[in-house]
């Protein structure tokens, strides 16, 4: 390890005792206020699991059914609680099974500390049993990773791991610990929290001139438009954000990960951006005069074709990660920094204003969208149910108070478009990576992260079959999650693209499902399956009110499409309503 100047040292206990590396790992977790670990044991991590046997009263461990389930659960936990998710896996296949979750957490900025066992240090590089080069495999998908082969390193490296995972723009950290280091006894002198690493600046310096310039530009704007992402949630800046848009009278639209940072019913919440976002936010992006991006990264699913994106607008970009500024969209005013700090500074300088005629344009667009898309989605004339009416009915029952965890595909877009939210950290989905199979394990983690809240996992018939084994985790731990499968008997999103862009050449999107209710029953989970509209309300109510996990399968129209849609390669104003 490098010598870091760690100041403001806080040490948990001043004891000087001989303990094993494994115990040091667990002591570090306790010091970091970890209360739950999602994991799966194996040969190379056995010493840590052996130590865990004695720490059962201090650390809860949830045995998952697959390491991918473990890491998605860790992500769900982190997203619903705002804390760091902790995951254990063994070497080799255990570690490689984490890779998808690491990539997902990396692109969605989710704080995780993953601990993997590794073969004995003397076997490294020899193709030993269950040896993989985990550090090099995970380098592109971790914020930081480190291999420990000497137990003396464990306290300081874990302190660093937690600090890096949660500070600045959060992300996943992986610590690989060789078996000899887990067994090794060493002199433990307590745990010192890390709050500074000289080579790492989690928050860039705030530059006053840009704050002033941003405020001035907003004050002069006639058609200002705010687009916000998960940065608002990760920075816990929801109140600061609301104060900002309310003072400036600024209409605000969200990215899929920014969803729930601002309550759905807020008068300035104008809806969702992007490929399947709302009509107004997309077309008016190309009519605003000042575009204010807060904690979002101009993903291609948000911008569509870059050379047709907001060309008329001046762009103000607030981000904690300097490498995001100018990455996709050139910012006229870059406001580097944590938006929890920068937003109030700008709010102070902007005029109290309303932009009624401009905000009304969003309302007009919304009317148009209701007429062309939303009304039919909510009141279909077909006998088959739509995904939208299921979500709408769910809103009525949960009143927007539930945590909604979604998988990836049509149901995800529909759920994000129509689900109501009253509070932050309520929408959990795989945004950047688009990981099918995310929702079921993430819902388990989300429930542990917010035990008092109702957690509904909305999943398609494709995604559920990717991580369905986690029903076993739900069974064994009595995790009270509601599983809502929207079954259209297709891999719906790919089918929609094949219909629209590949002349209906439905290539391998026809997916069969098992009898989900029977599968759930096999796992001792109650369930029901419906296909008639008249059963919907009652079945959803039963699912929510049921004491414990419940699986509800709802058959929806086979070839329903999600609209509006910005086709790939088109600009946002070329959004299609049908």
């Amino acid at each position, binding site marked *: 390890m*490098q*010598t870091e*100047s*760690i*100041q*403001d040292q806080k040490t948990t206990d001043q004891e000087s005792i001989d303990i094993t590396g494994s115990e040091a790992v667990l002591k570090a977790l306790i010091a970091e206020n970890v209360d739950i670990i999602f994991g799966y044991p194996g040969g190379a991590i056995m010493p840590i699991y052996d130590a865990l046997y004695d720490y059962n009263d201090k650390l809860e461990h949830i045995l998952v059914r697959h390491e991918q389930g473990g890491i998605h659960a860790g992500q769900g936990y982190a997203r619903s609680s705002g804390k760091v998710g902790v995951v254990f896996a063994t070497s080799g296949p255990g570690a490689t099974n984490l890779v998808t979750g690491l990539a997902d957490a990396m692109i969605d900025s989710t704080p995780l500390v993953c601990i993997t066992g590794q073969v004995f240090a003397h076997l490294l590089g020899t193709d030993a049993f269950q040896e993989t080069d985990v*550090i*090099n495999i995970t*380098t*592109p998908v971790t*914020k*930081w*990773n*480190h*291999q420990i082969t000497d137990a003396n390193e464990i306290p300081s490296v874990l302190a660093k791991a937690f600090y*890096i995972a949660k500070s600045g723009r959060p992300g996943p950290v992986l610590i690989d610990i060789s078996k000899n280091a887990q067994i090794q006894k060493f002199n433990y002198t307590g745990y010192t929290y890390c*709050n*500074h*690493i*000289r*080579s*790492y*600046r*989690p*928050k*860039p*310096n*705030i*530059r*006053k*001139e840009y704050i002033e310039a941003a405020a001035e530009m907003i004050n002069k704007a006639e058609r200002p438009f705010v687009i916000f992402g998960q940065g608002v949630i990760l920075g816990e800046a929801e109140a600061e954000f609301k104060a900002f848009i309310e003072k400036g009278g600024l209409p605000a639209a969200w990215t899929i990960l920014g969803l729930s940072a601002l309550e759905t019913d807020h008068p300035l919440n104008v809806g969702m951006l992007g490929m399947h976002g709302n009509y107004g936010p997309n077309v008016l992006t190309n009519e605003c005069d000042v575009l204010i991006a807060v904690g979002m990264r101009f993903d291609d699913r948000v911008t569509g074709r870059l050379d047709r994106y907001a060309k008329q607008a001046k762009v103000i970009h607030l981000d904690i*990660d*300097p*490498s995001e500024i*100018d*990455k996709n969209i050139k910012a006229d005013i*870059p406001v580097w*920094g944590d938006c929890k*700090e920068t937003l109030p500074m700008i709010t102070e300088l902007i005029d109290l204003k309303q932009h009624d005629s401009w905000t009304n344009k969003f309302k007009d667009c919304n009317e148009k969208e209701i007429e062309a898309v939303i009304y039919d989605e909510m009141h279909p004339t077909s006998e088959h149910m739509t995904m939208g009416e299921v979500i709408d009915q769910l809103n009525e029952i949960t009143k927007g108070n539930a945590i909604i965890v979604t998988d990836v595909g049509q149901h995800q877009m529909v759920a994000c478009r129509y689900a109501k939210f009253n509070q932050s950290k309520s929408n959990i989905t795989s945004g950047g990576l688009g990981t099918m199979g995310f929702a079921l394990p993430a819902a388990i983690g989300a429930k542990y992260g917010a035990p008092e809240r109702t957690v509904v996992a909305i999943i398609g018939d494709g995604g559920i079959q990717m991580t369905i084994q986690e029903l076993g985790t739900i069974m064994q731990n009595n995790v009270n999650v509601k599983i809502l499968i929207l079954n259209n008997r297709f891999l719906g999103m790919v089918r929609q693209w094949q219909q629209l862009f590949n002349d209906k050449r439905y290539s391998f999107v026809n997916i069969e499902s098992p009898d989900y209710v029977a599968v759930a029953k096999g796992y001792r989970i109650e369930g029901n399956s419906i296909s008639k509209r008249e059963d919907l309300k009652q079945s959803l109510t039963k699912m929510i009110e049921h004491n414990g996990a419940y699986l509800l399968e709802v058959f929806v129209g086979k070839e329903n499409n999600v609209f509006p849609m910005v086709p790939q390669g088109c600009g946002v104003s070329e959004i299609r309503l049908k």
Partner: protein
Amino acid sequence: MKQEFTITIYTENQVGLLNRIAIIFSRRKINIESLNTSPSEVEGIHRFTIVIDETEEVVRKVVRQIEKQVDVLKAYFNTNDEIIWQELALYKVPTDTIAEKAKVERLLRAYGARAVVIRKDYTIFETTGQREETDTLLNVLGPFGLIEFVRSARVAIIKDSKGFYEKLKEFEQSKPVTRIDSINRSRIEEETIDL
């Protein structure tokens, strides 16, 4: 327009960091033309010197992504006219050709080559200079039975740099400074050129 850029990176000495930096280039399918790691003017801090052929826009983005890495202290990028740079080349030639052919001796002298090893069967010459110089000598020696050739990575000093000590002092402060300064700097001169 693509041109040669030299990227200078100050880092901690951490196993695996080379890979972490290299994949930032390979991910964008950028070929690294030259890469050197060495100690820097500050004890315990390493210095990478990387040369790539890219547009300024891409280099700027890449440098920010490098600087974002936890173990990277600072990264700079410069065009060739902003740096002093050198490469070292070694040439192994049969001793008899040099002894017999006066032209070869003249050439070596003209290019400032220095003999490092002289043996009965071969002689090793060394030159230090920029790419064109070492290349030209390579080309002219070719016909005279050049046995081996190798060239080092580029090492470069940034003309405008005041060194890294001051930056390091700032970084070592425990509380990252939330500097609210009002200096009027042009937009383009962001932290990456903040020497």
